[in-house]
C-alpha cells in the first residue's frame, strides 16, 4: 500500500505556524530593502559609463533573479505534490505563482526602463528578453489553467504538470547571454570569477536580493494561509469549528 503520510501533514497545523513566521520575514524584508536602497542611492558611486541610470540594477537584477528562483521553487513544490500526492505542497505552488509573475513583470518593466537610455530602445527581440517574456506568459498560463478548472484536485495536478514542463525555460533565460550573442549584459556575479562590479554596488544588489527573498517568503506564506482558509471552507476537511479557531488563533 502506498505510503501517504504527507497527505496527513495537516494544513490546520501549518496555518498558525505560518502566521507566526510572517512578521519576522516582513520585518527582515523591510529592513534589508531600506538598507539596500540606502547603500544603492547614497553610498554607491555614479557609474562612469552609464551615469545614474545604472541604479535600476538594484531592482532589476533582484527581481529578475527572483522571477527565476520562484519559478524553480514553484516547480519543485509541484513536483513534490505530484510525487507524494501531498496537498500542502500544491498549495505552496499555488501561492508562489502570483508573486513570481509579479517579479517577472517588474524585471521586464525595469529592464525596459533601463534599455531606453542604454540601448536606445524599450524593447528588442533579444534571447534573454524574449525568454523572460515567455516566463511571464508561463506564469499567467499556470494561473489561468488553475482558474479554468473547478475541481481542486485536478486543478492542483494539472497546473503542477504545466509548471514542471515549463522549467526548461529557466536555464534558457539564465544561459541565453552565454549561448547567444545578445545585447543584454552577461553575468557579472559568478562563483568562479571574482566580481567585476564595484563592491558597494554588489553589496547593495545582494542586500536587495536578500530583502526580496524575505518579502517573497512573507507574501507567499500569507497567501498560503488564504488558500488554506479558502479550501477549508468547503466541507471536505469536515470539522468547521476547528477551522474558525485556527483562523482566530492568528
Amino acid at each position, binding site marked *: *500500500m*502506498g505510503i501517504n503520510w504527507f497527505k496527513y501533514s495537516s494544513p490546520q497545523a501549518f496555518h498558525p505556524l505560518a502566521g507566526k513566521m510572517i512578521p519576522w520575514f516582513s520585518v527582515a524584508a523591510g529592513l534589508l530593502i531600506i538598507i539596500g536602497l540606502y547603500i544603492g542611492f547614497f553610498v554607491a558611486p555614479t557609474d562612469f559609463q552609464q551615469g545614474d541610470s545604472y541604479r535600476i540594477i538594484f531592482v532589476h537584477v533582484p527581481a529578475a533573479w527572483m522571477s527565476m528562483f520562484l519559478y524553480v521553487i514553484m516547480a519543485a513544490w509541484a513536483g513534490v505534490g505530484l510525487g507524494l500526492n501531498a496537498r500542502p505542497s500544491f498549495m505552496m505552488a499555488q501561492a508562489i505563482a502570483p508573486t513570481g509573475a509579479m517579479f517577472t513583470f517588474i524585471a521586464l518593466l525595469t529592464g525596459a526602463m533601463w534599455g531606453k537610455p542604454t540601448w536606445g530602445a524599450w524593447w528588442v527581440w533579444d534571447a534573454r528578453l524574449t525568454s523572460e517574456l515567455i516566463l511571464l506568459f508561463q506564469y499567467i498560463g499556470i494561473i489561468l489553467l488553475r482558474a479554468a478548472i*473547478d*475541481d481542486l484536485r485536478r486543478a492542483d495536478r494539472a497546473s503542477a504538470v504545466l509548471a514542471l514542463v515549463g522549467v526548461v525555460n529557466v536555464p534558457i533565460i539564465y544561459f541565453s547571454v552565454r549561448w547567444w550573442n545578445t545585447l543584454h549584459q552577461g553575468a557579472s556575479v559568478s562563483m568562479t570569477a571574482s566580481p567585476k562590479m564595484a563592491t558597494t554596488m554588489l553589496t547593495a544588489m545582494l542586500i536587495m536580493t536578500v530583502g526580496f527573498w524575505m518579502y517573497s517568503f512573507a507574501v507567499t506564506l500569507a497567501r498560503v494561509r488564504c488558500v488554506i482558509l479558502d479550501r477549508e471552507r*468547503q*466541507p*471536505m476537511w469536515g470539522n468547521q469549528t476547528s477551522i474558525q479557531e485556527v483562523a482566530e488563533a492568528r
Partner: protein
Amino acid sequence: MLQTVALRGSRGQRQLFSDISVTVKPGTLLAVAGENGSGKTSFLRMLCGLLSPDDGAVLWQGKDIRQLKELYCAQLIYIGHLNGIKDDLTPTENIKISAGLAGGDSSSEIVRKALEAVGLGRSTHTLPTRVLSQGQKRRVALARLWLSTRPLWFLDEPFASLDTLAATYLTQRLQSHLGNGGMVVVSTHQEIALPTDSIQHLRLSR
C-alpha cells in the same frame, strides 16, 4: 480474485462511499446497486484504476493494483456509460481495432461472429456507427465481451437502452463467463436473471 480493502471514494467535496471491503471470487458476479448519484460509476472506475481512492486499496490476487499497473489492465475489460467506440468507423472496424489493441485475435471472421452474437445484423456491420440507433451502438460496445479472454469484467449499466432480446444475449454471455471462472462487477437498476448463488449484492447509499 479481486478484493477491495476499506475503500473510500469522494468526488469534489462529497464523500460517496467509505470503508467498502468486498471480495469477488472467480465465478461470481458483484451487482452494485444504488440510487442515481450514489457513486456506482465512481466505484467501478476506482476498481479499474481510472480513479484513485481517497483511502484503502484495490487488490488483485492479493497485490495492490497501483503496483501492478499494466499487468492489471491486461486482466480487465471496462465498459462505461460511454460506449468507447468511434462514431465515424463501422462496427466491424471498431471491434477489429479494439480486439487488436487488446492483443487478441482480430480476424474478420471472429469480429463478424461477435457482432452477430450481440444481435447486429450483417447490414449494419458496414454502416458508420454514427447512424446506428442508441441500442445498436450499445450492442457494438458490448460485442467486445464476446471476443474477450480476460477474466475481469466491469460493466456500467450494460442493459441501458438494450431491448429484451439483446438483454437476454448479454445475460447468457455473463453466465457463460462466470461458468468459465470469470468475474463480473456490474452496476444496474434492473434485476439480473442469473442463479442467485453466483450473485453478490452491494448497495451504495447516498
